[in-house]
Structure formats: structure tokens, C-alpha cells
């Protein structure tokens, strides 16, 4: 097989968007743009666009540091100033990067925040994270407490509570920092654009129901969700990006093509897999290659839902902007209770006709990981399909043991193969 690097127009487009964003960040001070640090899950991008602020996402910096092999030394730096080995490495990676001058992925120093917008959806660690950042920056913090969907639904009270906080805490702080008044119509406009892009994203993700799947919904998926989950949702650029992406994916479906991977086109789909849990960033390509080598394609993943579960029907609603933002925050994947997460995985296995499912358990992330072993059992029971379980970390290179992961994946795929050949024997 020839391994040519395939670059589709959408990829170029995304690259440009990101480069442009970092350029704007670098020039933020010159242009008097205000910088807001905030998180991906439950991000309030449309609202922030309404105030003309520029977001910085610490988790994205951390994952980029992981991919650029810098996270190891950043984590070490944070541990040197007293952080425990045990805690979330995203936080430590971010702190370490800060200690090292806060140089972003483009090699330029990131601007300091004018506001820390702590929307704390799906994870308590976010709260600690911003408490820690607050110690280093002299800027206000807007805290948005998003309750947990403990009983599988976002109640009226929860929505009202979050919307009230947007009104009384988040918007006033944004106004105070930017000097811009809240303009409901501007936010609505962005939401309208979000909707369109959200439809296209869902179409792209659901294209994986085809056989062969034209996309990898995990490794490839993290690129597809990039603009939607970060600075761009609600922008024209994002709208254009998703239109383009969708047409490319449609074309691959029509041509009966498999997904594009760094190793080239995957032309033989041998296993269709659903994955739960974030990927590992320090060995991202190596990890992907382990799937590629076995002909395994991820057809659905939960990680691509951490910034919104659009495929389950949610859309931003310009008619109720604040309530809709509240519903969005409440609905992010890690804010769902375990029974809902089990249902979602089981549905994916069925809807995407998967051969197996895998849990990538992340040492850092209690929010994702605590309970995954119980989920495993329940998903197996619900689908009758055995699951696989591997343990890695997001950005701590010490916790990625290639031989170990490989051994487990290999054993798992061999087991799936043995299973399907066994079943053939029986039906023959």
C-alpha cells in the first residue's frame, strides 16, 4: 500500500481557521480585543462572540502540548511546584505551560486572560483549575455552576438556575470586562449559524453508518469536532467548513471509500468499533496506527460529544438564547449520568452495526473514568457484544505503554475475529 499524505480542502480550511485564530490572539492587545479563558464542555461561544471576545481553551493547549511532546516536561514542572502525581494531567500540563512562559502552539506567547469564564460542566476539576489560574492572573472570574443530570434529564429548575447565572453572573462580568453591552440579537444570529453547522456535523458523524464507513469517528472525529467545540461555533467560517466537510464525506460515501488516516486511505474495513473515553494525545498517531494496522475503524465515539451531543437532537435555539445555552451546558456528554452513558453507547453499537466496543480509560479524568468498568458490563449485557478495555492518559507520556496497549488491542481484535469466525462455523 502506498502511503500518500492526503489533504482535503476541509483540512486546509481548518488549518487556516486555527492559524487565523492564533494570529488574532497574538494581536489581541494591539486591537484591544479582550481575551477569555474558558473550557470546551459547556462553552458559551455564541455569547462570547456577542461580546467580541477571543477565547483561549486551556484543555486545547494541553492537548496540543501533548501532541507536540511537550506535555511531559510541563507536567514535571507542575509537579515540581507541588502538584501531586495523582491529579488530572490536563491541569498540570496547563500550569506547567504557564510556568514556562505560556507559549502557545504557534510559538507565540498567549495573551493573559481578561476574564476567566469558568463554566464548570461535567467535571469538578475545572473549578480547581480556575482557582489555580486565578492565583496567577489578576483578573475577574465568572463562575457558572452547571448541575449534573443525575436522573437523566435536565429539569426546568436546572435550566432556570443556569440561565439565571448567565444573566446575573456571566453577562455582567462580560459586559464589565469588554465594555460592550449584551445584545440579544447578535447572540441569536450566531446561534442561527451554529444550527446550520450542527446539522452538517451530525450528517458527517452519521455517515459512519455506511459500510465501509467513510470516516473514523474517533481519531478523525477529533478533527471534525474541532471548530464546533472551540472558538468557531456560530461563525461563518465554521459554517463554510462544515458544508465543505459534509460534501467531501458524501463524496467518499458515494465512492465507497473508507476513512483517510495518516497512514493513507484505509481500504479494508475489518472491524467496526465504538469507543468511549478521550484519546491519548502524546502517542496519537501511534495509537491510531494500531487501529489502522488491524483494519479497525471507529464508527462512533462518545468523546466527540463532550462539547455537545448534537446527534441526539440538541440544537441551539435562537428563540430562547439563554435557556438554550443552559440546555447545551447541561447536556454535554460528561454531564450525563452513567445509565444515560450506557444507553448511548449501546445505541451506538446497534445503530452503527459495530463489531465491538472499546473503553479507553484515562487516568487523569475521574469525570470520564470513574464507573467505566461498570458501564462496560452493562453495555455488554445490553448489546451481547464483548467490550475491550485499555488504560492510557491524555497527556502524561508516562502512562502510555505502547507494548501494553498494543497487546490488549491485538488480543481484543483477535478475539473479535475468533468470535466472528466461530459464529460463521456455527451458521454454516
Amino acid at each position, binding site marked *: 500500500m502506498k502511503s500518500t499524505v492526503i489533504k482535503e480542502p476541509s483540512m486546509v480550511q481548518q488549518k487556516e481557521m486555527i492559524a487565523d485564530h492564533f494570529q488574532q490572539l497574538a494581536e489581541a492587545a494591539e486591537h484591544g480585543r479582550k481575551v477569555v479563558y474558558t473550557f470546551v464542555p459547556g462553552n458559551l461561544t455564541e455569547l462570547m462572540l456577542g461580546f467580541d471576545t477571543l477565547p483561549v481553551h486551556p484543555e486545547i493547549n494541553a492537548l496540543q502540548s501533548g501532541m507536540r511532546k511537550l506535555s511531559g516536561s510541563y507536567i514535571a514542572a507542575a509537579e515540581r511546584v507541588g502538584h501531586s502525581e495523582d491529579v488530572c494531567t490536563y491541569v498540570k500540563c496547563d500550569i506547567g505551560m504557564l510556568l514556562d512562559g505560556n507559549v502557545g502552539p504557534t510559538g507565540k506567547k498567549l495573551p493573559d486572560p481578561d476574564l476567566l469564564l469558568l463554566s464548570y460542566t461535567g467535571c469538578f476539576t475545572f473549578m480547581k483549575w480556575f482557582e489555580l489560574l486565578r492565583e496567577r492572573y489578576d483578573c475577574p472570574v465568572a463562575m457558572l*455552576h452547571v448541575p449534573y443530570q443525575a436522573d437523566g434529564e435536565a429539569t426546568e429548575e436546572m435550566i432556570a438556575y443556569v440561565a439565571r447565572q448567565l444573566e446575573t*453572573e456571566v453577562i455582567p462580568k462580560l459586559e464589565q470586562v469588554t465594555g460592550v453591552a449584551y445584545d440579544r440579537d447578535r447572540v441569536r444570529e450566531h446561534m442561527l449559524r451554529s444550527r446550520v453547522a450542527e446539522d452538517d456535523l451530525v450528517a458527517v458523524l452519521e455517515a459512519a453508518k455506511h459500510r465501509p464507513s467513510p470516516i473514523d469517528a474517533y481519531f478523525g472525529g477529533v478533527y471534525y469536532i474541532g471548530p464546533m467545540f472551540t472558538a468557531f461555533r456560530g461563525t461563518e467560517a465554521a459554517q463554510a467548513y462544515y458544508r465543505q466537510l459534509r460534501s467531501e464525506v458524501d463524496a467518499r460515501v458515494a465512492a465507497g471509500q473508507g476513512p483517510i488516516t495518516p497512514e493513507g486511505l484505509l481500504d479494508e474495513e475489518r472491524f467496526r468499533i465504538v469507543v468511549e473515553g478521550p484519546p491519548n494525545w502524546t502517542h496519537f498517531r501511534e495509537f491510531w496506527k494500531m487501529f489502522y494496522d488491524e483494519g479497525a475503524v471507529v464508527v462512533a465515539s462518545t468523546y466527540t460529544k463532550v462539547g455537545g451531543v448534537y446527534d441526539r437532537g440538541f440544537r441551539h435555539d435562537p428563540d430562547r438564547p439563554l435557556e438554550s445555552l443552559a440546555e447545551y451546558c447541561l447536556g454535554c456528554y460528561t454531564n450525563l449520568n452513567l445509565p444515560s452513558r450506557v444507553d448511548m453507547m449501546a445505541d451506538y453499537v446497534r445503530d452503527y452495526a459495530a463489531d465491538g466496543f472499546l473503553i479507553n480509560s484515562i487516568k487523569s479524568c475521574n469525570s470520564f*473514568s470513574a464507573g467505566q468498568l461498570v458501564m462496560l458490563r452493562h453495555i455488554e449485557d445490553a448489546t451481547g457484544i464483548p467490550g475491550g478495555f485499555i488504560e492510557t492518559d491524555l497527556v502524561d507520556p508516562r502512562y502510555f505503554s505502547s507494548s501494553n496497549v498494543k497487546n490488549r488491542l491485538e488480543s481484543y481484535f483477535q478475539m473479535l475475529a475468533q468470535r466472528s469466525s466461530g459464529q460463521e462455523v456455527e451458521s454454516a
Partner: protein
Amino acid sequence: MGVEAIIGRCQGLLEDLDLACVSEWKAAGEGRKAIGFLPVYVPRELIHAAGALPVGILGAGEELEIVRGDACFQSYICHIPRSTVELGLRGKLDALDGALFPSTCDVIRNLSGIWQLMFPEKEAIYFDVPQNLDPQVGGVFYRGLLAEIVTRLQRVVGRDVGADDLRAAISAYNASRRLVRELYDLRAAEPWRVPTSEAYLLLRAGMRLPVEEHNELLANYLTAVRDEDRALRDNARIVITGTFCEQPSLDLIRTLEHAGCYVVDDDLMLVTRWYGPDIRTDGDPLDAIAEAWMSADDETPCRYVADGTRKGQQLVDSVRRCGAEGVIFAAPSFCDPALLDRPMLQAVLEEEGIAYTSFKYSENTAQLQPIREQAGTFADTIKLWSDA
């Protein structure tokens, strides 16, 4: 009752992993129910008002062999959820008719989901104590939540809960908090009189006994211990912090004392010590409880401190108030809230020139030697240099 008898009783309660005492209590009255709760903050008043017995679920200590609980959690997750699951699967929580899961951290939060999946027949009430402390926002939300909890408790106990029931419960717990404060004050003043292992056992007993009975026990102890003849030892006075959730074993607490430390303040068994002043008993009781939460200035790693300049202040105050010579950060392994808080608190102590040391434990830590060495060296340092 003498000190020894009281402590013996408490020890028995601590070791009662099967909750026989709860079953007995239930059997003593028609239709009695018991509701478990996890750390750190729970309005036990509501359970009491519903006529049910609030029972603390605080892991299994070092006694229980964890088999199936381990199967539910990866090695890098703290210990308390696995022992909770183990207890449940072994039928040791059968006496409970439901459980409250406060929003302490992601682990306890997800544990509520595990409970829903594994023990569907038992009520699981997760509740999100608000981090927004604006009475009009968080306050309103919390008031609603409390009402919701009451409604769900009513379903479990099969009867209505009135305002007077709630007021009576508030009074009982106000009394409990006063007694606990007295106990802590006494220990801070005369630590040789109240060993922390005893203070701890007393508080743990409150996780099993009805509050009135526990109050009596506390009062008796406070009287009896003042008559005890206990020798003053050449120990260092320290504050322990970080132990708010998964509890260290009694052996660990004793190890610290043997290594030459008098504990003069701690955040063990925090649930017994929330809020500064009493909760008011007039007006709407749910409002009163919500208000108390909103205005309490208790700082723990699971509560957002809105004013950054106040971070760590409570710890410094406690060191000063109790005349402590140092702080021991003892936190459960893999406890994100405690461990992420630690560097912030340590920075404050450094600024204040207060000595500290730190280590991690888990409820079943068996190798106490490294902990003894660390605490011992810390105490040595304080002692050898106290007059230098």
C-alpha cells in the same frame, strides 16, 4: 459511663460493618427507614425530620477485603467508592433504604450512577449543592432542591414531613454541632486530655446513632474525660487537613499520635461540623437550611471560594486559634479536590511562615511506616527546635 466504656461503644459501632445497629434501630419501631449518605456535606436534618435514620457511608476502613469493588474502579481512583460498592454487593448496606450523594467530586457523582445501575431497587438521591452563593440564584435553586429531597424522602418513608418536624431536626443538629465544637475546643486547649483517636471515634459514632443518643454520648464523654488523669507528653501541636472525604484508618490516626503529634484541629468527619452559628429555627425551615449553606464560610476543597484572597484563610485561622505549630496535609491518594487544593493552601502557609508536611493515604493503607517516619520527623523538627 466512663471514658473507656464510651470509647468501647464507639469502637464497636465503627467495626459494625454490617450495620447491625441500624437494623436494630429499624426493628425497634414500626416502618422505620434508614437513609445512607456519603461525604462531605449533607443536610441530615431532612432525613431526621422524615423520621428516618441518617447513616454515614464512609467506606470500609482497613477491615474489609475488597474483591468486587475493585472490579468497578481502576487502580487510580480513590478507595472509598470501591469499598462502598463492596459493602453494597456483600449485602452490608441492606439496612439502608436509600442514599444521598452530595456533589463532592466526580467520583461520588459517578458513584450515584453506579448505585442506580447496581442497586436499582434503592432510592439514590444525587444533589447538587449550589456553588453560586447568590441567594436569589443559588439560594432559590437550593431551596427547590431541598424541597425535592424532602418529597423523595416522603416517598421512601411513606408519610408527610411538616415544618415542625424540620424545626425539631434543626434543633437537634444544632445541639450536636454545639457539642462537637465543645469537644474540638477542649482538644485544642488540652490535647493530652482528648486523644484524636477518641475524638474521631466519637464523631464516627454519630454516623450510626440517632442524633439525640449521640448528643448524650458526646455530653457524657465531655464530662467523663475532664476527670481523667492523663499525662502531658512532649508532643508537637499540629492541624490535619485534607481528610474531608475518604477517612484514614484509626491506626493511621494513632500512628500520628505515637509519632509525637497532638492533633489540635482537623477536617475529619466534616459533615458533623458545618456552619458557624446555629441554623435558625424560626420561619421556613428549608429557607433556613439553604441560608445556612449560602452564608457558611466553611472552606473545603469541594466548595468554590469566590473571593480568591480568602483562599486558605480558614486554615491559617485555625492554626492561630488552636496554637498549632504546624500543619499536616493528609489526603486520600487520587483525591483530586484535596490534592489540587494543596499547593494553594501551602502557598498561603508559606507566606504566613507556618511549617507543614504532607502525605497521602488510603482507608486501607497498611504500611504505616513511611507515614510514621514523615510525621515523626516533622514532630522531631518542631520539638528539637522549639526553643532554638
